[in-house]
């Protein structure tokens, strides 16, 4: 992965459950994040307005002020990325959370590893957005990426990718044989949080594979790395 300055990241966790909150606080700190833990929606909103945070983790059911209300109020003044956490796994909550500007949604129960992947995905996306990506040089004898047409060309043939497929292939191509996590790809390509039942990204990958195969491109392929994500790398010799 591109080095993301995790150690300097400030995280605000708004979680009323003492056990889960303490655990999050402790574990995330151990991983080098600077964590501020707050148990109440209203205090959380005040703290989030006063100081700068890279990511806000927030429960939906909170005493004082509901998480969705905190989010709405916070969005009036700041664009800090917010990850909502909730045991209310219902679709409706997820949708209303996103409509009010949450960057990701993590249904409880979740594992710490999953949470870290989500945080990293968001930090990385923000870092990428700040940096203004440099245009990678087009190598000859390679797949030609056409920024204007949003398509790739192999030899004389165009693959006929859709916009999302192109962006996905492009980001995989730029990251230089590095495995990109699904939460990151969702953030970067589809601009939304990753949910376990969401198959859009897998479907795009499946289409990219079909289309690359159709134009006879076999040097590299989009490979699935189980439990991690996707990578564009040299095809396995079967």
């Amino acid at each position: 992965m591109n080095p993301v300055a995790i150690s300097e990241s400030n995280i605000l966790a708004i979680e009323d459950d003492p056990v889960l909150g303490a655990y999050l606080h402790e574990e995330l700190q151990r991983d080098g994040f600077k964590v501020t833990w707050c148990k109440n929606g209203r205090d959380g909103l005040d703290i989030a307005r006063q100081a700068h945070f890279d990511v806000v983790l927030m429960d939906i059911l909170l005493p004082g002020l509901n998480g969705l209300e905190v989010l709405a109020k916070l969005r009036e003044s700041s664009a800090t990325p917010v990850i909502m956490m909730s045991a209310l796994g219902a679709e409706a909550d997820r949708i209303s959370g996103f409509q009010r500007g949450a960057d990701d949604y993590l249904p409880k129960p979740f594992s710490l590893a999953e949470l870290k992947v989500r945080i990293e995905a968001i930090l990385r996306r923000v870092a990428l957005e700040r940096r203004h990506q440099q245009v990678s040089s087009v190598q000859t004898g390679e797949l030609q990426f056409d920024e204007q047409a949003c398509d790739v060309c192999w030899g004389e043939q165009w693959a006929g990718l859709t916009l999302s497929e192109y962006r996905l292939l492009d980001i995989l191509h730029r990251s230089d044989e590095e495995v990109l996590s699904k939460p990151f790809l969702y953030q970067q390509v589809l601009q939304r949080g990753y949910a376990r039942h969401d198959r859009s990204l897998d479907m795009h990958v499946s289409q990219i594979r079909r289309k690359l195969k159709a134009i006879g491109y076999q040097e590299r392929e989009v490979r699935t790395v189980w439990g991690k994500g996707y990578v564009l790398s040299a095809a396995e010799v079967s």
Partner: protein
Amino acid sequence: MPNRHSLFWKLAILLVGFCLLMIGLSWTWGRHMQTQNAYLSDDARILLSGYAAEAEQAWLQGGRSGVDAWLADMADRESTWISVVGPDLQSLSSTPLTPEQSRKMTFLRGVDWPVSRRVTGLPWMRVPFVERPDLGLLVIELPQRLLPGQYRLYWQALTNGIIPGLFTLLLCVGLYRMLIMPLIQLREQANAWRADRLSARVASSTTSRQDELGELGRAFDDMAERLQGTVVLQQQLLRDLSHELRTPLSRLRVACEGEADAGQLRERLSREIDCMQRLVEDALQLAWLDTERAPPSQEPIQVQALWDMLAEDACFESTWPPAQLHCALDASCWVQGNLNSVAQALENILRNAIRHSPATGVIRLDGHRHAKHWLLWLEDQGGGVAETELERIFAPFTRLDGSRPGDGGFGLGLSIARNAIARQGGKLWAQNTGQGLRLYIQLPAVDL
């Protein structure tokens, strides 16, 4: 514009018809009564002609003195003014007419003329002699008791009050039966639901109506049907779910008491948590599929690409070689649906097929297009199920081979698949092929 069977038309016809009927009735009856009440009654005419005959008799027999005597006699019988006059309208008695009386002689009425109510005072009647009308006539101020229209008020009350009132009452009864009875039935059904009798349905007399109230009744019944189905499903789900959750819990308890090694315990713990989480998620998803109101967003899905994606996952999970999962569909097969739902349905069906196939079995996806639909089928070589079980495999928590929970799944996969497909406007059903089970999926086709 309300439709042909609308209540509007019934009400319009009924009310307009009723209004016209009432206006017509009171008009004709009123006129009839008015004319009826303007004429002298038969008894009055007979009485007056009798008087005339007596006067004639008196004149013919006694001349002036005879008439005088008769008039004197009449004064006792009638209190009104009476006179007998000749054809020249001069008195035949010895008392001549006063000028006032002579003037009134020009306004005499015959007995068969209508008597207007508008004249003030009592009308003067002329009754010609019976045998010799040319000889003279009796003039009589009509006695009050013979005046027609004695029962005028009574008749007016009848035609203008009581009869319209009765008709309106009839109309009210009709309207009540037509409009309110179905509502009472609906209220009774609502009360039945309150008493937890969910099987209560609206009477067929209401639901078979073509109008709005019939629609309301049918909507009510549909709602009851759905409510009952949901409640039954939820109760069943809750029962099954608590039963299923006991298994991993009891395993955990045993592990907690028995296992000494911390590493093993942790591994065991994590396995059981995974199992419980999967169970809870599947069960919740089944419940959501049934209760979610907004239809999921739909998009065209290429089945071939979907299959590639699912087959890759399935091969990884089951360690089957990809060659055993065969797709006979080409790139032209596009269906309309929600990607996540269709993917999950097909994934569940595929997992089910793999689980029940021998290790070397081949699973095939094929299909063809019927006009607006794609009929897809997925067949395995797992030997199929008994014909009687073909429907039961779609019920939640059905496990035919009696496999233990956890390793054989929870029996929720096919229920979720069926509900998910149904929400896309499709159908899912099963058939035996002899070699194995064939699951048919019907989904709306799209042309790109």
